[in-house]
């Protein structure tokens, strides 16, 4: 029987990637930990919403945006497996995401909700 190690290696690569799933997915316990972290961040978000002095401060909006960005990143990296999957998926997602976020910021500048050196006004 012919034995071609190169072909076997190629087959292993195809076999592995054909599913589009890497084998380094997180374990069940990681998923539960991520859920707890997401819940805690949500609790903090809602908690700061009910602190009038913090709501009136300049740190309120940046804090909420940062917490939201962390939650977004955690879900994308762990639940959507972008941290473990092929880099092509990362490119296909982050490219449009950057365009989308740039569009939001550009439109907010265009319509006067953001001003350079003035922060959010609206």
């Amino acid at each position, binding site marked *: 029987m012919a034995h071609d190690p190169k072909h076997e290696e190629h087959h292993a690569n195809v076999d592995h990637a*054909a599913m*589009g799933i890497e084998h380094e997915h997180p374990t069940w316990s990681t998923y539960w930990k991520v859920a707890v972290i997401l819940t805690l961040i949500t609790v903090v*978000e809602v908690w700061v919403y009910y602190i009038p002095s913090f709501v009136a401060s300049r740190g309120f909006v940046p804090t909420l945006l940062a917490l939201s960005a962390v*939650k977004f990143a955690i879900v*994308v990296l762990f*639940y959507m497996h972008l941290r473990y999957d092929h880099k092509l*998926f990362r490119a296909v997602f982050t490219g449009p995401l950057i365009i*989308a976020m740039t*569009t939001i910021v550009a439109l907010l500048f265009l319509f006067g909700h953001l001003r350079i050196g003035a922060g959010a006004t*609206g």
Partner: protein
Amino acid sequence: MTHAAAAAHSAHDDTHGHPPTSTGLDNKKIAVWAFIGSECMLFASLISTYLIYKGRSVVGPYPHETCLPPTCSTPLKAILNIPVTSASTFVLLMSSLAMVLALAAVENKDQPKRTTGERILGSSKLWLWMTALLGATFLGFQAFEFTSFVHEGLTIRTNLFGSSFFTLTGFHGAHVTAGVLWLLTLLAIDYRRGLGPKDAVNVDIAALYWHFVDVVWIAIFTLVYLIK
């Protein structure tokens, strides 16, 4: 059959009868990621519209401020109900957990389950049902919210806030509805012939869509509900 031919035959089987792709990745999964990328831009346009119109409504009800006469004919309180929306946000986050557990259960279907805990974690039907029910619960919260807003005098035609709010959250709700229907079709397949590791890609792309709906809500919850 030679070893190489057997390997090629096996690779052919692993890709569900299709030859290996040029990237070595499943085309369906690339397509779903590209679709999700395009959806990012759709929701970016809806979110920007909401943010541009924020604070520019001439008449109430307003999201975070009370509306008193003469601006409003009758006194109106701030319309957003943060406790209810926080609960619905928690429900959607937990649905994402249930979804990853469903995918893990499908991927590990062939592995032996010794304990009750392993059998529970390994039940794809249980987690798919859980995800669909939590998604439906989220839709129930949204229906409650929309109904209460209409009772309080806010419709899609009332003011700029109403127009942009109902459009944004309505589009999101439509996506959740599509996700629930997708999950129910997976459940039907699971009951008919059982979902196994060979179906992992199909469950994975449904999971990607579901998590995307979740991350969009994470952005909406902060930008629409929490930032005053």
